[in-house]
């Protein structure tokens, strides 16, 4: 608006563009520093843990000269800071190293495993948000009544029940006994190789190619683990929504709306929730980021080939390139989600513009 009124239309726009570029530059340099710091910490931790990556490759019966040669091939004889510099240079050129465990480039592995996690986490967060926010609102509005207590109990169970136990129980009831859902894995064996990966997310790929049989099968597999993760984020999101809503409903602008004779529904959903959404963005983003790290337990129970399971397996096998690569991806995801929630903040809160 300011550029239109100023009369210096071109100048205003150029200035806006430059300030935009400046902001982007600031964000990018901050991202770079964050990721570098994350890599450094992970790298040095990986070098001080008492597991020997050389042994992981050659086995503990290899003769000393073989051991030494492999050690040199892996660059482990160099000073640590030099090793780190080499690693960062490689990463910048897109080389995350080779996994000892799968003998494939780590980048390729991650391209395979991350979409599975992304798919599961996105669906889980969607379920948690779509159900959690309205439940939290209702709990706040009907404070102290039945629905409030119900939401609290549901949240408490969500917080305290071990997820692997709920997962096994879910599989037992809905898969083994009732047969309502698909079992572990992303697809039935018979569908497994029918799909050419485009995004790596089975649901998206199936929809893109119009293969609805695969799509339905993928849904039947993902619905149980996604609901489980969704339940956990629901527990968190509904509780936070409740407290944000209670805070907003006690504000004076709510009285103003009542004085104006605005309907109660509009006061709740249009005024209070609209304001509560601002802090809620952070909560939902955090819960999403948390799921994107890969939920090791859920992925293990449901044989879900996701990032969490990949990193855990790699760690247990001293596969440091894979661990570092996975950590890097998680770091990038965290930063990306933070940037996204900042942008949403600007959208929802005029005071931050």
């Amino acid at each position, binding site marked *: 608006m300011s550029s239109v009124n100023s009369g210096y239309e071109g100048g205003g726009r150029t200035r806006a563009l430059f300030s935009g570029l400046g902001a982007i530059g600031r964000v990018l340099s901050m991202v770079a520093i964050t990721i570098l710091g994350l890599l450094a910490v992970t790298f040095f931790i990986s070098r001080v843990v008492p597991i020997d990556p050389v042994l992981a490759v050659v086995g503990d019966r290899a003769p000393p000269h073989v051991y030494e040669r492999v050690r040199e091939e892996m660059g482990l004889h160099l000073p640590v800071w030099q090793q780190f510099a080499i690693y960062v240079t490689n990463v910048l050129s897109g080389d995350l190293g080779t996994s000892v465990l799968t003998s494939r480039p780590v980048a390729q592995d991650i391209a395979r495993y991350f979409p599975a996690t992304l798919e599961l986490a996105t669906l889980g967060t969607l379920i948690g948000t779509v159900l959690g926010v309205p439940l939290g609102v209702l709990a706040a509005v009907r404070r102290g009544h039945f629905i409030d207590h119900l939401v609290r109990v549901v949240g408490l169970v969500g917080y305290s029940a071990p997820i692997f136990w709920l997962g096994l129980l879910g599989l037992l009831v809905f898969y083994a006994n009732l047969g309502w859902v698909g079992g572990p894995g992303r697809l039935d064996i018979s569908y497994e190789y029918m799909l050419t990966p485009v995004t790596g997310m089975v649901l998206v790929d199936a929809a893109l190619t119009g293969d609805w049989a695969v799509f339905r099968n993928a849904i039947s597999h993902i619905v149980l683990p996604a609901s489980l993760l969704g339940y956990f984020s629901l527990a968190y999101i509904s509780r936070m929504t409740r407290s944000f809503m209670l805070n907003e409903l006690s504000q004076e602008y709510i009285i*103003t*709306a009542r004085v104006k004779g605005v309907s109660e529904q509009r006061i709740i959903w249009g005024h209070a929730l609209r*304001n509560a959404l*601002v802090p809620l963005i952070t909560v939902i983003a955090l819960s999403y980021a948390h799921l994107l790290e890969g939920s090791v337990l859920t992925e293990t129970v449901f044989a879900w080939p996701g990032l969490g399971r990949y990193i855990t397996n790699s760690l247990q096998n001293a596969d440091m390139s894979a661990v570092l690569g996975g950590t890097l991806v998680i770091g990038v995801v965290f930063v990306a989600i933070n940037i996204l929630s900042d942008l949403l903040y600007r959208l929802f809160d005029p005071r931050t513009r």
Partner: protein
Amino acid sequence: MKEQAPLLEVENLNVRFHLRTGTVEAVRGVSFSLGRERLGIVGESGSGKSQTGRAILGLTPPPGEITADRLTFDGIDLLSIPRRQLRNLRGGRMTMVMQDPKYSLNPVMTIGDQMIEAYRAHKRASRKEAREKALEMLEAVQMRNPGRVFSLYPHEASGGMGQRAMIAMMLVTDPDFLIADEPTSALDVTVQQEVLRILDRLVAERGMGLIFVSHDLRLVSSFCDRVLVMYGGKVMEELASGDLESAHHPYTRGLMNCLPALEGSAHPLPTLRRDPAWTE
């Protein structure tokens, strides 16, 4: 003007809050009636002056309980009226301006949108008509550039501007009755006068009934026709503004004496002596 039934009749109004720690009686047996005139309610913090206003609008917060022998607006019994109709009265025919526009305006909606909402809650009108009406109203509260104020968010407006926008919003439906609850207490002294002048003019032009709630005795007596002095939830005294000097009640006299004179030294400043017997 022909004699008509009063706009607002309040008889023996009580507001109680039943809390876990006991019952708080915020308003106790308040009675008054109001025509299309200006009534000031004065009192210190906790005297029940604000709760009296809220009770009339049916906005007493949840654990509160209202009882009255009579509480009518234009002959309509506010105690037995269905909630929906009460909501139609509220904002449509009776309204309120609160203390601080910083808190009483919704921070994530533009002033214009909030005004349109107020108008359309009561009148069948397109967004465009509502917008015209809102701009007209913003002009009536002497905004220099109504179009700009219309598209501002509350945090972008100054205190005086925000309060004038608030007044514009609350009067956009042409109500008959306004409660102004400390409308200038949060503003700079320099803009207080301006806001009061605008309020004064609008109330006079539209022939509205006004309850002006304040702790400022002098301000209220200069602005209103009559003054109700409250203490501890009870009315201590009701008098015409002109008769303030001849007030009888010791509490009112005490308040008057506490006003420091500009001329001459008055050390030590007198303090207010409160008698527990007043609230018995």
